[in-house]
């Protein structure tokens, strides 16, 4: 079959859902950030596919994806610095144990 827009949309939806599953079921804090990057990749595939099939002259989706890459790198950096601080205080990056609440 020739490739249509819907093939790329299904692929992007799959990537996003795998990322969401990773965010929900990761016990380690770094793995949550890794699966968040997967979700970003899924969204970017969606945007670039729309930009290619609907408006090929103006690269709106590709510009958006470049900004997504920038922002995701910045927030991954700051998030990892926060995880360093948490590790300094609790000596673990396990999200079940990072809790000082009673129950």
């Amino acid at each position, binding site marked *: *079959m*020739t*490739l*249509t827009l*819907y*093939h790329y949309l*299904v*692929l992007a*939806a*799959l*990537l*996003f*859902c*795998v990322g969401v*599953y*990773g965010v*929900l*079921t*990761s*016990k*380690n*804090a*770094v*793995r949550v*950030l*890794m699966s968040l*990057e*997967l979700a970003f*990749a899924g969204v*970017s*595939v969606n945007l*670039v*596919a729309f*930009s*290619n*099939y*609907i408006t*090929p002259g*103006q*690269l709106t989706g590709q*510009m958006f994806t*470049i*900004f997504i*890459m*920038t*922002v*995701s*790198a*910045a*927030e*991954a*950096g700051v998030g*990892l*610095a926060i*995880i*360093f*601080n948490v*590790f*300094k205080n609790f000596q*673990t990056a396990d999200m079940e144990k990072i809790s000082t609440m009673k129950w």
Partner: protein
Amino acid sequence: MWKDKSFLIIFGVFSSAVLMLLISLVFGSVGLGKDLAFYFLSGLIVSSAIGVVTVPNLMHAGFLLVLTFVSTAGIYALLNADFLAGAQILINGGAVTIMMMFAVMLTNSSKDTDKIPYSYEYRFVAFVLSGLGLFLILILRTLGVNFNLLGGQMVSWAPSSWAIKEPISVSTTELIGKMFFEKYLVPFEVASVLLLMALIGAIVLALREKDIKEDLIETTEEIKELEEKVSTK
């Protein structure tokens, strides 16, 4: 070797990619080239994404994330986004994943966490919510199924010309450079300010108090030495 869970998942990644390739060759009139590349790359992407989420060792998860990003760069190349494919390999596959693996190594995460994951019930509920529920909602909404349960027709919200239009080949690097200075100038400058803020914030957050104290002690000693030199002259 065959009992190691990480090895099984990584082996499953590559074998599923090859399987996607063979299935696309066998079923239907797949033209060589773009379609073949799409099925192979999508097999690689989905299976290595599942591997990132599932593999117990976090170093393996980092490497599988690199594989996911490189395959996504291949998908961008299929979609006529050549500059974006290169930028994806450099930025996402090169810098972001290395940062994640530094974090894994510095927080001792490759040893103990995630060997005992959450319980089966919790993971099953999460899978049903995200893997089936969200995925089905996204797919059915894009492919045009009417959710009216009292009987509506199957209406696709997208115009039918979307599926048929053949994408044209444009060289995008020059166009992207032009757009950064004409249409997207303000977001470009704001993004550079954002990167500066993230850099300063990450340094302030990760700085140890021992380093600040040592710096203070060193500078006060240097000031004392300079004062002595000035006073003895």
